[in-house]
């Protein structure tokens, strides 16, 4: 652990420098990460039937089409599950940090961290919106989420 004993009043901020894990450069996920660099949360979508998929697939499970492309989402959703973690587990975020799955309005689920709030503010079902954090030295942008305007427990 790198921080003093946390208090629940601390507002969790995205780290300024990223030393945690990074995605490997892989062809099937590259469009997702390239879009984040442009501050777009892009998700794979079937051009034949419109179904969204995350993580990406190589054929559409809904209709069988191979005609798949990444498309920007609205970057909004709600918290599907959330955990307040009191150990770093290699993330180098400082503790406590908040891990979450967010269900996007488009229907797919992404893994993220909830930031710009305290650990007491987070709960399943709260509306959230994306915030982008650039780590230019390693050419990486991560998509964090913050509570949407007016969200309250």
């Amino acid at each position: 652990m790198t921080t003093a004993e946390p208090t629940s009043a601390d507002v969790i901020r995205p780290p300024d420098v990223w030393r945690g894990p990074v995605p490997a450069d892989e062809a099937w996920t590259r469009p997702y990460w390239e879009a984040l660099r442009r501050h777009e949360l892009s998700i794979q979508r079937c051009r034949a039937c419109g179904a969204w998929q995350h993580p990406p697939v190589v054929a559409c499970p809904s209709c069988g089409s191979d005609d798949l492309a990444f498309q920007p989402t609205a970057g909004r959703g709600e918290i599907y599950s959330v955990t307040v973690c009191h150990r770093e587990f290699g993330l180098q975020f400082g503790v406590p940090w908040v891990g979450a799955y967010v269900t996007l309005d488009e229907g797919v689920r992404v893994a993220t961290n909830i930031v710009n709030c305290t650990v007491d503010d987070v709960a399943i079902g709260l509306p959230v919106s994306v915030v982008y954090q650039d780590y230019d030295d390693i050419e990486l942008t991560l998509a964090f989420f913050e509570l949407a305007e007016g969200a309250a427990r």
Partner: protein
Amino acid sequence: MTATDGFRGRVVIAGVGYSDLGKDTGRSEASLTIDAVRAALDDAGLTAADVDGLSPWPSRQGADTFSGPPLSLIQRSLGLQLRYWQAGGEGAAQLSGVINGAQAIAAGAADVVVTWRTVIAQPRAKKVAARPVNVETWHENGFLAPHGVAAMSPKWALLAARFLYETGQTPDDLAAVVLNNRANAQRNPRAAWYGTPLTVDDYYASPIISTPLRIVDCDMPVDASVAIVLARADRAGDLRHAPAHIEATAGTPGPQTEPELASADLVRDTSWHNGQLLWKLTDLRPGDVDVAELYDGFSFQTLMWLEGLGFCGRGESGAMVREGGGVALCTDGGQLGVGRYHGLEKVAQAARQLWGDAGDMQVEGAEVAVAAVGSGSRGGAILLTR
């Protein structure tokens, strides 16, 4: 598929064996494994010369401390003449070795198959000057690891939180599993927590790791190996134990369960999916089961299996454990009581219960036992009968 297409009458659990178990035994994975395999063959009344198949999970795939010893190292050390061998990380998680081995026997590819699971508590890696920075992560983990939720505790905490939310249960229901298993461990001298009971106050005094999970909701890493010998049922005359038949197995993901992000119904994956599948392969029903050795790497997983296998309704599992009665649960103390043996010991304990060989842990008259492992996207269940 009808019930008669299951394993019944074709494959038995012939013997089980254990290595020493401890926080830091100083032993290699291979040496622990050899001890467990020899003990299991002894228990079965067989020798290495009888073995013609190996089917562990997952076996060494690279430089890691998760996978156990290389298959070939065990095969060479025991001088085995094999007709069948397989290992690998995909499949029904910790039940893969048993299920694949049993399928090989049922198909006539082997007569006696040995499977094992060997775990080491502490990486014996050399000390490094600085923590690794910007470690690359691959495949689906590339979407999880940068947000910290590929690590086991946060990953399973997210599932636990959603499970409690959807089923209207609370940390009291998690505590029920921890207390049940720790109490059972007091009858198991092999258990890491033998001699260390736990009260409900102890439970709530235990530090939070990742909400809703406290440290006592997580199993403790240990060094341990368990081995199981599977045999053709018509070899039963050569065996020391009365047969413990494999009645049915289930161990597949649902159509969209890999990885966690893609599942339409994360809470019901694995336990519910494989629960449904298992009961289609047998005429037995949850009410026929005397002993349930259900996965408890984390406490909530036991609750998910109780509901998924149909021992109770959705949201009723915590109360079922708290009130007791019904099926005997995690009779060896589970991983929360024994230590992180990582699943296969559940099958061994289920077999011992059917043999009447479970000592102070024995459930009188046990005739049907189920073991189940895993949660999220991977796991499985196995039904045994006397």
